[in-house]
């Protein structure tokens, strides 16, 4: 029997992450270029940005802790890529030509890459964010220097925001179109997972996967 790996802590993480990323993008955009129709909110927007900065950071730390020591132990998701010539071709056919997947659960190359990239991007976003938060810190100035100075750190932080916007667009489309059941499960904890899962198999730890194959 396939049990759902979308446990309650993961759902809470996803909710908090969803809210804080949206808040961070809106307020961050405002800090970059204040909306002309609401110019007087800079202090408020910065405050919100900093509050969610901490919420987002702590949330991610807890999620990583859960990834290592939690029930599902899915830390491999953060770094492991399942890429081979076959899987890339299958995935391309699956996503662009809408073919069925020849081997169950192994057509999620792009999703796999996107998830690994986005988790590491969160990290870099936190690091660059804190460099900008403490611009006069002598402790952090070395890292700022190696990243190319404060201007570069700002540019990196800003550029990754755009990557995250793109991820959100594609992620939402894919989730809604391909796995609406999973969306319901992730957000409200209702509904069943379909047995033919693309994500679950990729996301399962190597040991569990081997067991499932047997």
């Amino acid at each position, binding site marked *: 029997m396939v049990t759902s790996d979308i446990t309650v802590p993961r759902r809470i993480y996803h909710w908090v992450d969803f809210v804080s990323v949206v808040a961070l993008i809106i307020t961050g955009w405002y800090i970059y270029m204040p909306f002309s129709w609401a110019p007087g909110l800079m202090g408020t927007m910065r405050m919100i940005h900093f509050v969610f900065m901490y919420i987002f950071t702590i949330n991610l730390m807890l999620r990583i802790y859960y990834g290592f020591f939690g029930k599902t132990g899915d830390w491999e998701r953060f770094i492991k890529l399942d890429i081979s010539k076959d899987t890339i071709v299958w995935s391309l056919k699956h996503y662009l030509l809408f073919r069925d997947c020849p081997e169950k659960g192994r057509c999620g190359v792009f999703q796999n890459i996107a998830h690994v990239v986005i988790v590491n991007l969160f990290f870099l976003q936190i690091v660059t964010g804190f460099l900008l938060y403490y611009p006069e810190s002598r402790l952090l100035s070395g890292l700022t220097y190696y990243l190319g100075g404060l201007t570069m750190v700002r540019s990196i932080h800003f550029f990754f925001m755009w990557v995250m916007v*793109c991820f959100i667009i594609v992620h939402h489309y894919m989730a809604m179109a391909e796995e609406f059941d999973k969306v319901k499960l992730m957000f409200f904890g209702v509904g069943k997972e379909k047995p033919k899962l693309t994500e679950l198999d990729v996301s399962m730890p190597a040991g569990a996967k081997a067991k499932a194959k047997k």
Partner: protein
Amino acid sequence: MDILKELVAKEINRRDFTKLCAAVAAVFGMPKAFSKDIAFAAENAMKKPAVIWLEGQDCAGCSESLLASINPSVAEIVLDTLSIRYHETIMAGSGYVAEKAREDTIKEGGYVLVVEGSIPTADDRFCMIAEKPFREILLETAKNAAVIIAVGSCATFSGGIPGATPSKGRGVTHFIKDKPVINLPSCPLKPSRLVATVMYFLASGKAPEMDKYGRPLAFYSTLLHENCPRRGHFERGEFVTDWNDSGQREYCLLLKGCKGPKTYTDCAQVWWNDGANFCINAGAPCSGCSQPEFYNVFSPLYEKQQTFNIGPNTTVNLDTVGRTMMGVAGAGVIVHGLGRLASKSNDEEE
């Protein structure tokens, strides 16, 4: 003390002199007792330590800025007591005589070398002095120098404004890697910085504590944005959007391209020209002249931008890049969605 007689002649009394020395010590965060060393240094300076002042591709604005300090100041004491052997703008000698003065000083060794202006990298012929490329003059003079101080934006980092020209001017650190170079960027040089650095060097015999860019922490450790007199308007979201609106006169200049949030300088605390004023207080956005990004990455100066520096003279606007990426992602999703619908209806027909 000989120095007091000279100072009295210049209408500086003992008390003023002590105060000035203490001020120099305070700039570098040294204990008050150290001001005695500064006083000794100033007194020793009566023995006239030699200074060579080189000018490359510059506008002589840094020299001008230093010479125009209002008296009586530390600057005046130092300028009058240091023996400036070679300075193209102010020296009386010319031709072979002038070049010989420089060569003699190099033979003596142990002088202070001040470099103003950038060094061309595209072609040596962009800057020739006495039939010699300026690059060679710099390397030759730097060899025996006790300390090298690069002043102004042109002589530091990527060469300031000459760095953006076809001559591809670069700063001193681009050529001299084996010796510590004290960078004092800003356009022009802030006189108090050079004077304090020279005094510190004469007093302690070593370069002041510097950051990763070789700038003394005493002047370049605070972010302008954190100390800006217009910061309150920034927090309240009051920005200058129209130069002609007198109601916005005191507002934050961020949207007019102010580089304050990216610039490390003490401008807000120590004003220019003996405390007369500084850019932001005078109503002009900061152009970030004390940063390595000046001038290429920070131009256009009066526009807010977020750029990636992909080459020495090439930048990409990230706003355009981001919007394009978002557009491509959005279009891709729509096309994919339509394709999906089409393939589903195909499946149903089959």
